[in-house]
């Protein structure tokens, strides 16, 4: 870091440990930031679209994951550069808010930054650029709303939802089975959706993975699957018409929270205590049994003796059920979570059609399925696949699809994919640019170019000639005044995305453009980076 010196040649120390800090200012800082952010966007850009490629990520411990999901890629890359990290957060906030389009948002930000770089070279002030981007963004968003279409999610057995899910799944390794998986996701979401309030609580959809079989074997269980088995090997493997007692207290003698000591000073005490202990177990099991429950699920462990008493009383039980599962079961079966044995009453029991143990493969892994719950407001998607990596990737893909469907239930407006929406916005923004008389005009025009970058990138990934196909699509949009013309990624012979039925949610597209613009604006405002030198 450069130092200022006084008349005697002594340096002015302004920052602590100034000598060890690295400082970048002005244009140098802008460029370095933009290049770092672009490097991340470049890595992601080849993952965009139905023919996008995957990334293989090796964690610090040597675990391998293969994924196409933007948010996962940037998260696992362990990015160190501070500005590049902003893009990681960008992708993650898209993931948190919308759940899908995490790659697209980063690629768009990358394209915007690329444009900003040329504008900077032209000598336009960064704030002017960001103002221009801001105004262009507003225009683009407005235009998105005008070209959006409302769809009837109920029509034709939710065909529109399935198509939207297929669009989301199309770019993943599971794309071969996108129709089946899309249907599973749609059914799952609709099962738990509150259509009156247009809301979906995604906690009610449990995604359970199990390696083995193949992706085709993935199925939807209208109930809950828990990775546990009966506490005693000789308990019945299936309970019909289950009345579930959901406990969060262990089948063990109570442990008062206050610290205490029981001193045994005579043999009588000893005997009394022994009897009392035995009585505890008997009472516990009796309380559960008396309530009419025929299966007990417990968050904690069982003592051997209690376990046997349960068996003897023909009360199947499951121990160490995880907290989230307990809540899920409570919601699905209408059971109340019971923290003390004394409080068990018949009304608090949950009801389910059956609880049974299922076994997978040759290794001894069993799971419990709770089916036909009283209030079937919880479902499980059981994902199968040839290896851990495929299963993990399928899980991420299905999560994306579920998010898309949820967004459509919340807001049933869609735009068409294949880069058509971006192109339409670009045309609109370009028209608007000519109306602006100030310097921002250039920034607005560049924004349009950046939007065109998305279909460009899509075409590139699909092995088409990006410049020709984008130019053709753009001219057709203008000539036919049809905002649905995009890139024919799947080579189906039509560029009208309505015919190809590539649906994307309006909310996702809007969010993408807004978030990307915001982050770019933020990066453009940084003109000074002070960092420790060993960075």
């Amino acid at each position: 870091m450069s130092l200022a010196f006084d008349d005697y040649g002594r340096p002015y120390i302004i920052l602590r440990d100034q000598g060890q800090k690295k400082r970048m200012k002005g244009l140098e800082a802008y460029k370095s930031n933009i290049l770092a952010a672009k490097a991340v966007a470049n890595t992601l850009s080849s993952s965009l679209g139905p023919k996008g490629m995957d990334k293989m990520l090796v964690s610090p411990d040597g675990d391998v994951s293969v994924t196409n999901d933007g948010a996962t890629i940037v998260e696992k890359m362990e990015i160190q550069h501070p500005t590049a990290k902003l893009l990681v957060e960008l992708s993650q906030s898209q993931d948190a808010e919308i759940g899908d389009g995490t790659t697209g948002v980063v690629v768009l930000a990358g394209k915007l930054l690329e444009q900003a770089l040329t504008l900077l070279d032209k000598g336009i002030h960064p704030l002017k650029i960001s103002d221009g981007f801001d105004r262009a963004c507003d225009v683009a968003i407005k235009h998105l709303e005008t070209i959006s279409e409302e769809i009837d999610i109920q029509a034709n057995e939710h065909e529109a939802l399935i198509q939207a899910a297929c669009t989301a799944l199309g770019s993943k390794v599971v794309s071969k089975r996108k129709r089946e998986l899309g249907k599973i996701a749609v059914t799952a979401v609709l099962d738990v959706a509150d259509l009156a309030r247009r809301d979906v609580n995604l906690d009610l959809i449990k995604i359970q993975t199990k390696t083995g079989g193949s992706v085709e074997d993935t199925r939807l269980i209208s109930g809950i699957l828990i990775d546990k088995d009966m506490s005693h090997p000789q308990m019945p493997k299936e309970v019909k018409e289950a009345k579930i007692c959901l406990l969060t207290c262990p089948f063990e003698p109570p442990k008062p929270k206050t610290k205490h000591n029981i001193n045994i000073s005579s043999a009588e005490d000893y005997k009394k205590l022994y009897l009392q202990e035995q009585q505890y177990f008997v009472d516990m099991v009796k309380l559960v049994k008396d309530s009419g429950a025929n299966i007990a699920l417990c968050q904690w462990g069982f003592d051997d003796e209690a376990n046997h008493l349960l068996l003897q009383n023909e009360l199947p039980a499951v121990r160490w059920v995880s907290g989230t599962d307990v809540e899920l079961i409570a919601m699905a079966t209408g059971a109340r979570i019971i923290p003390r044995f004394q409080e068990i009453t018949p009304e608090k029991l949950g009801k389910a059609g059956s609880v049974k143990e299922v076994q997978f493969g040759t290794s001894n892994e069993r799971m419990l399925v709770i089916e036909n719950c009283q209030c079937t407001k919880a479902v499980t998607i059981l994902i199968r696949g040839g290896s851990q990596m495929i299963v993990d990737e399928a899980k991420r893909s299905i999560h994306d699809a579920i998010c898309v469907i949820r967004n459509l239930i919340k807001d049933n407006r869609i735009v068409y994919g294949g880069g058509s929406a971006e192109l339409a916005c670009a045309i609109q923004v370009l028209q608007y640019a000519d109306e602006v008389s100030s310097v921002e005009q250039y920034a607005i025009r560049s924004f349009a170019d950046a939007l065109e970058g998305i279909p460009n990138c899509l075409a590139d990934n699909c092995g088409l000639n990006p410049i020709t196909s984008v130019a053709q699509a753009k001219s057709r949009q203008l000539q036919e005044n049809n905002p649905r013309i995009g890139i024919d990624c799947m080579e189906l012979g039509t560029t009208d995305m309505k015919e190809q039925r590539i649906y994307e949610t309006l909310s996702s597209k809007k969010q993408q453009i807004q978030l990307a613009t915001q982050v770019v604006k933020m990066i453009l405002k940084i003109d000074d980076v002070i960092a420790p030198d060993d960075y």
Partner: protein
Amino acid sequence: MDIVGNVLPQVLKDEATEDKGEMARLQSFVGAIAVADLVKTTLGPKGMDKILKPTGPGQEMTHITVTNDGATILKSMYVENPAAKILIEISKTQDEEVGDGTTTVAVLAGELLREGEKLIQKRIHPQHVIAGWRIARDVALKRLRDISSENDINSQEFHDDLVKIARTTLSSKLITSDRDYFADLCVNAVLRLKGSSNLDYIQIIKLPGGTIRDSYLDDGFILKKQITIGCKRRIENAKILVANTAMDYDKIKIYGTKVKVNSMDKVAEIEAAEKEKMKHKVDKILKYQPTVFVNRQLIYNYPEQLLADSGITVIEHADFEGMERVAAATGAEILSTFDAPERAAQVLGHCDLIEEIMIGEEKMIKFSGCKKNEACTIVLRGASTHILDEVDRSIHDALCVLITTVKNKRVVWGGGNSEMQMAAACEEEAKKVQGKQAFAIEAFARALRQIPTIICDNGGYDSAELIQNFKVELQKGNQNCGLNMTDGTIGSMSELGVKECLRVKEQALMAASEAAELIMRVDDIVKCAPRKRERA
């Protein structure tokens, strides 16, 4: 630096690396193919074994393993290459899911990628290759299901099929010379399970000494424990109580108890109370009137003596699995409390005869004529622990395949027949498909055909000639022809009795193509900086 010469800021952590495009792809291909080549030589009846030697200090690190089992080899290898890890992963999944075909799946995935690499060099986009592979996989799977046959589970044919499948599985292992013997043994063991798929109930006891031929399936159930001194060594018409309870010092489970006394007398009193408590427990046990008492936990001398005095044979410290097996075999309930003697008839297990037997040099307890007869024991003998371990793995493979077959029921011809049929189906399909995908479909067919080719090569036969003859035979409509690995000719698999389980083939095909697709789709490998480990 990028192509234009701009210095790019460092985005990733210091030691992290990123490979893109061709470099990334090359890296995955090299890794995956290397793994496939490594296990390739173990494929088929004439496959060779590998010695696995652990590295590192310590006594246990000198124990070597000799094996032919793909999953075992791959599991014990430490690889750095991420694509190679994917192959190892699918091999493990194959092992868990169906138990056999672990080498095949890795080799098939490797061969697919080898073909894929050639296509990439011809400038065909990976996505086109994948599209072709997907078509090919569906066609192959359909053909595989079409050529499979199903027999009724109770028929003699099904039983014969099982024996044939077991023989086929075992023929690639160490015990190939005794495969008929072991095939019968495995089939009998599996049929005793009566359709249940819980392998736990088949116990395998390994005892060094004797020859492999001395191994046998015991129709009873053998527990690798000893009867406590001073008890009867032979009990007829035994009533067995299986328990999981503390028989040492029964501690009070109420939290926070502490014995605090102020005189020696009181100590004696409490000691007496403790004794009495144990006596009480023993009395309760006695009310069930068992003749044999098996406990999972330790039994101290005092209760042991009490029980022995009442003429009960005591077996202590049975491990958990052993207990479950005893319970399954004799139909006993595993008890932890003893307050309901009226349920004795329900909870006690029963068997005709319990006796102490000697196998080799070790004493064991044999339960014969059990009530439920579900559990059984395979006693393996062999010259060394290495041989025994390998035989154990082979038997395990065979048992897994048999259980899968019992569940799935469908079988196909072995000897490379199914692979050749699938390859033929792919080639027919390739003629109908328009576009670049057709190349990938042909490549898929070639990869499938590599499996019988490698089997031939491993046997030292002229693979090129044999495979061509094989093709011709199939073309002639000889649906059940296959490789005769004893003579090095093409023979009829129905005469040779070589059959395989459909499920194993299906799973291998699906897993291998899924993995190959996964690796093919990658165009960027990011390796994070390895976590720093402090040396302890």
